[in-house]
């Protein structure tokens, strides 16, 4: 009774390292080329910096204003990550609650949808009135936006569990709790990861949009306020520097969530596998 498998040597891929190197080099060169063109256009046409600063000036501004911009970046990062964490806990928890019975879902899911489809900019002023502080208001806004994709993906995942596996768990007398812990949650992991990646990006967008709406100012304000402030003062190089920071933050969040998804799925899930043929 055995499927005998002798180890077969893996075919060597001589181009593997070259491929990896090119995968890094090509985008970097592309970005450098674009920056070069940008600088050239600004220099040749002598565009004043209050209309369009060149990348060199933006870089200088980034260094010069680091003392102002970095704390703002930290504030925005903090709001994004805390709201994302709350959305993860809330989304998963609420999804588990929703799928307990059809009636619960019928009763509560529309409320979640209403919250989702109402533009966050439209309810931000209300939240600002009711929240005890601006920071809390920003957290609530970012939470509301990141919450729904996580919720809807989790609900989908929890309901997509293989029926035969559910039967198997029934057969072995698994409790509700065991079925949730050992079957439904792990089976939903790919859906959760999709929610995490979407939610991570949306949390940052919502944190920025909410700060625009809140118009908060002063020492505790985030990058969005620094953007507005730079615009009012016609300090366009600083505006670009702040924008650059936001982009980097977005990319880092995307890479982090993608990495977490890869870590948890790469051993078993199709989405993280290379096609072998």
């Amino acid at each position: 009774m055995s499927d005998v498998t002798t180890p077969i040597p893996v075919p060597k891929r001589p181009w593997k390292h070259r491929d990896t190197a090119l995968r890094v080099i090509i985008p970097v060169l592309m970005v450098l080329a674009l920056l070069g063109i940008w600088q050239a256009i600004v220099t040749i046409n002598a565009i004043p910096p209050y209309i369009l600063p060149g990348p060199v000036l933006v870089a200088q501004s980034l260094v010069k204003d680091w003392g102002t911009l970095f704390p703002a970046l930290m504030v925005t990062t903090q709001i994004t990550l805390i709201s994302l964490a709350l959305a993860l806990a809330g989304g998963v928890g609420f999804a588990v609650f929703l799928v307990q019975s059809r009636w619960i879902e019928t009763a509560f899911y529309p409320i979640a949808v209403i919250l989702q489809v109402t533009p966050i900019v439209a309810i931000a002023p209300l939240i600002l009135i009711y929240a005890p502080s601006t920071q809390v208001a920003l957290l609530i806004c970012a939470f509301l936006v990141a919450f729904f994709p996580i919720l809807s993906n989790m609900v989908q995942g929890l309901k997509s569990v293989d029926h035969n596996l559910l039967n198997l768990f029934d057969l072995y007398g698994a409790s509700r709790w065991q079925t949730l812990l050992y079957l439904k949650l792990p089976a939903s992991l790919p859906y959760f990861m999709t929610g995490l990646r979407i939610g991570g990006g949306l949390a940052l967008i919502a944190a920025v949009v909410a700060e625009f709406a809140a118009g908060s100012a002063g020492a505790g304000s985030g990058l969005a306020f620094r953007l507005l402030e730079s615009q009012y003062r016609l300090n366009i190089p600083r505006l670009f520097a702040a924008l650059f920071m936001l982009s980097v933050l977005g990319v880092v969040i995307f890479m982090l969530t993608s990495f977490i998804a890869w870590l948890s799925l790469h051993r078993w899930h199709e989405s993280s596998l290379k096609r072998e043929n």
Partner: protein
Amino acid sequence: MTSPSASPHPAKRPLVVMKSVSKVFSSGTLALSDMSLTVESGEFISLLGPSGCGKSTALRIIAGLGDVSAGSIDWPSSRINSRGLPEGDISFVFQEPTLMPWQTVFGNVHLPLKLKGVSKAAARDDIMAALTTVGLKDFADAYPRELSGGMKMRVSIARALVTKPKLLLMDEPFAALDEITRQKLNDDVLKLWKDTGITVIFVTHSVFESAYLSNRIVVMKARPGRVHADFPLTTSLERGELYRSSEEYRQACEMVSKTLLDAMGGVEEH
């Protein structure tokens, strides 16, 4: 998973008794009508019939997946739990391997014991024994996606064996496999049955499979699902390659085939 007794099938006693069981689905379909079946310990029974004859439904009802609409199921020689099922005495092998893709082979076979609260460490010996029985002890750390269809099915069988059940219920387990793999697995299940004295109820729509494997065949009839014929199948030959090419096997196939055709009302379906 070995029992050293010389005679694998000692004195017969009923393991499970189905009394006039009927099953109506919520759609109103009468899936099973007045089905009675007494399964003796150590039997290898094939439930054979056209699609829609309720053979899978019968198997699921025995396994406790779904209630009976009328009639009863008794387990004369087992201790039953609060749900009326014999505690740990039955195992089920589905048509699909039904493995958890996020668990290794080891983790998948561990599942029935884990649900009973047995830790990985405590279950290790039983799991490795079950994997050895199906010839996969070197694949304990592999993930299901790394295995072939036949190997996945073996994992599924190992998982069914890990609780050391008295009754193994198999619902067209090899229907999705290629002919060569299927023959190999049929031989493996036969060997398992001989070695352990386990009772098997095997749902199939293959005349050849049922005639090759079982020592009792229950032919079922569709609309509504019910028992059409129930007869023993004895052979003087050891079941194996020799039997597969014997005149005796050919005659058995012919007889089973005729009974099946009769159950289908003498005409082919479709």
